[in-house]
């Protein structure tokens, strides 16, 4: 193996280690959150302990000394809890959660290339408090203080004889191919040979082993991680593997010198109790999985997008050459379109994550916010396994965090106020996710005071968001809380900020094509309901022409399509123009206005009735409808630049680019701007 190959392997293993850390940290958070409801559950403390232990073990193998030190300290405290010396309570869970955050920070720092990390002293002090007299003993110089070995044994610094052979530690990761066994060798022999060199600690990663029904007995699924403490040289280890060829892959790394003080003393390691391999939660789905770099999945999504575009090109050429749909070529192309469609849906599903990852973080937010506001809040999570595209999930965390904080700070009343109102002093906050009509719905429901429409109206007038006397229905009044700078609280709090939140929430959700709805009942509570697309990669839309150019309008925003009669458009005053529709009228926007080019309105014969998230409608006038289809979304900023009126773009079968309408923009700035100029048109 060349030095270059070795470095590549090491980098790959480091990445796997960080991935595993992320998994352990997620599990840690999950178990800590669950521990709050079941403080007596010893299995949860055991799992938490194993998570920290697992991170520590890996960190030691890579010489991440600060991570080893902190996780060891954390683990020592957890050990006291799992042994029953100490009891879990709200305060200890708060400390554990802080420690989990600290662990996340250290892992993140090392992942980003850092080599040292200093944990906030108050966190360390909190932990040492639990260790009691052991921790309060006078400590020697700081560098020598934490001379713990990676197995969790503490020992005092020892004088080392210069001539005495020095021990070294090696981390060895072993994977074997089926051929290894076919030619008569066995992993058992290798491990015995390593044992002959010194003391070994073996951990087996069995996650990849299929269930009996699916296993192929000749295949090899296991990976072994060995920590070898030996006085022998590196060459002695290499000799064991020399004759294994490519059938056995051994990645051997020396535990670096800076971790030297964590070396195992000549203690009887064999007698040390080792923990079973970390099983990631008892509720975990036990299915065979393959770890794949997310960038590869993203690339696959992009490639399938290109495939969809090519499919469109074939169909476009077929139409141009008048190839009948019921011809052999036509039926093959139709079958291929279906296959590509299925392929696309499958790959997009591969990129979907359970919303649990976001909900778990919110558990923390609820606890902290409740503590800061001195309120009692019970969090109920539903539909945590609902899957959402990763690209959406990444952008969902911040707005949800803000909404949860708001719900507790502004929605749920203090225990005293609730008691006076005859409510349970403990407020209820329910987070719920589910699928409906091809979209993901996330609800944030509280049983607090509910929104006060009169108060919101007054505040909006005071803030000059609306004019006094302006007639608004209840839903329109509720939606005022999403206006920039709106806040109904008399005092700015540390929790929900200064009224700059909800407009940002709305904008953030719009960026992921999300819509938000409010329903509220005074004194009973509020439900914020967020509707999200399953993916941002594909959009179902109607393609239309205006002034010779192609555009797409998302199908979710089209509530009706009618023939447009320009002579019926009428002036309704104050620069506004309308078009009769059912029992009322609609504001009018011409698609040609988007292009800022002179247009012949006689060509404009089709009217889309477009609806936004507030169920407001407008008439959007175009020349001609081309087709309804699924379109692969291309980011404008990445490929060109941001263009007002358009959220994204797509590439059509003929290679042309079609812009996809930003409907919210049409209802916002554009409607206001264009209404005045429409006076000249009609």
């Amino acid at each position, binding site marked *: 193996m060349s030095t270059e190959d070795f470095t590549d392997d090491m980098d790959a293993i480091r990445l796997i280690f960080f991935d595993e850390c992320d998994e352990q940290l997620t599990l840690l958070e999950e178990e800590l959150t669950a521990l709050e409801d079941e403080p007596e559950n010893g299995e949860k403390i055991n799992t938490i302990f194993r998570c920290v232990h697992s991170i520590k073990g890996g960190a030691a193998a890579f010489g991440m000394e600060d991570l080893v030190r902190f996780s060891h300290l954390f683990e020592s405290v957890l050990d006291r809890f799992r042994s029953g010396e100490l009891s879990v309570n709200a305060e200890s869970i708060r400390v554990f959660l802080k420690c989990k955050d600290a662990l996340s920070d250290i892992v993140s720092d090392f992942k980003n290339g850092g080599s040292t990390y200093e944990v906030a002293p108050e966190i360390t002090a909190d932990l040492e408090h639990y260790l009691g007299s052991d921790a309060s003993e006078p400590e020697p110089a700081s560098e020598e203080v934490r001379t713990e070995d990676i197995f969790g044994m503490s020992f005092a610094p020892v004088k080392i004889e210069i001539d005495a052979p020095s021990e070294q530690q090696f981390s060895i990761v072993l994977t074997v191919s089926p051929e290894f066994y076919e030619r008569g060798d066995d992993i058992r022999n290798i491990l015995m040979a390593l044992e002959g060199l010194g003391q070994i600690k*073996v951990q087996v990663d069995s996650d990849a*082993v299929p*269930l*009996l*029904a699916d296993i192929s007995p*000749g295949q090899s699924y296991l990976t072994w991680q060995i920590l070898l403490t030996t006085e022998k040289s590196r060459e002695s280890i290499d000799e064991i593997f020399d004759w294994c060829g490519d059938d056995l892959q051994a990645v051997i790394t020396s535990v670096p010198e800076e971790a030297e003080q964590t070396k195992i003393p000549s203690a009887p390691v064999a007698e040390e109790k080792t923990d*079973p391999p970390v099983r990631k939660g008892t509720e975990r789905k*036990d299915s065979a999985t393959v770890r794949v770099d997310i960038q590869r999945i993203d690339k696959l999504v992009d490639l399938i997008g290109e495939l969809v575009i090519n499919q469109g090109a074939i169909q476009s050429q077929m139409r141009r050459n008048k190839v009948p749909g019921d011809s052999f070529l036509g039926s093959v192309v139709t079958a291929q379109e279906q296959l590509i469609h299925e392929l696309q849906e499958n790959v997009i599903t591969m990129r979907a994550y359970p919303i649990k990852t976001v909900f778990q973080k919110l558990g923390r937010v609820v606890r902290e916010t409740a503590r800061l506001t001195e309120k009692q809040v019970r969090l109920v999570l539903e539909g945590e396994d609902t899957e959402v595209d990763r690209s959406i999930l990444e952008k969902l965390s911040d707005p949800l965090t803000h909404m949860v904080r708001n719900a507790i700070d502004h929605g749920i009343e203090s225990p005293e106020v609730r008691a006076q109102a005859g409510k349970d002093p403990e407020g209820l906050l329910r987070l719920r996710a589910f699928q409906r009509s091809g979209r993901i719905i996330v609800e944030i429901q509280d049983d607090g005071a509910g929104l006060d429409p009169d108060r919101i109206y007054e505040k909006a007038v005071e803030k000059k968001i609306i004019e006094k006397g302006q007639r608004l229905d209840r839903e329109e009044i509720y939606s005022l809380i999403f206006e920039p700078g709106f806040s109904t609280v008399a005092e700015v709090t540390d929790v929900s900020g200064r009224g700059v939140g909800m407009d940002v929430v709305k904008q953030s959700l719009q960026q992921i094509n999300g819509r938000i709805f409010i329903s509220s009942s005074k004194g009973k509570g509020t439900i914020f309901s967020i509707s999200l697309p399953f993916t941002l990669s594909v959009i179902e839309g109607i393609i239309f022409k205006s002034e010779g150019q192609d555009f797409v309008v998302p199908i979710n925003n089209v509530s009706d399509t009618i023939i447009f009669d320009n002579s019926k458009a009428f002036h309704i005053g104050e620069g506004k123009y309308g078009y009769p529709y059912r029992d009322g009228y609609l504001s009018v926007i011409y698609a040609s206005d988007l292009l800022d080019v002179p247009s012949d309105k006689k060509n404009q014969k089709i009217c889309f009735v477009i609806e936004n998230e507030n169920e407001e409608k407008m008439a959007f006038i175009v020349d001609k409808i081309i087709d309804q289809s699924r379109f692969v979304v291309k980011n404008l900023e990445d490929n060109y630049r941001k263009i007002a009126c358009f959220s994204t773009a797509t590439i059509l079968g003929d290679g042309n680019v079609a812009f996809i309408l930003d409907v919210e923009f049409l209802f916002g700035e554009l409607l206001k701007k264009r209404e005045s100029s429409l006076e000249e048109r009609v």
Partner: protein
Amino acid sequence: MSVLMLPELLDTKYALPFSELLKKEEREFVLDGSQVGRVGGLCFQMLVSAYRTAQMQGAGFEIRNISDAMRENLQLMGGDFLLEAKGDA
């Protein structure tokens, strides 16, 4: 409930028949390791798979009368959890 007597050699050659025997176990995995003199990597893997299957099904997994050699071999390969499994996996 039937007890599956394990042979002296759980080596590479035995992995295939071992997998077939384990697949026939309807629900509980109760194995007798008193005669085992050696456990190889592939059979170790089969035991892990049976353990995981039992976990998945909420069924039992237990190796009884473990011989010293089997214990040492399992420990050597990191299989302490197989030794500790009793009743429901």
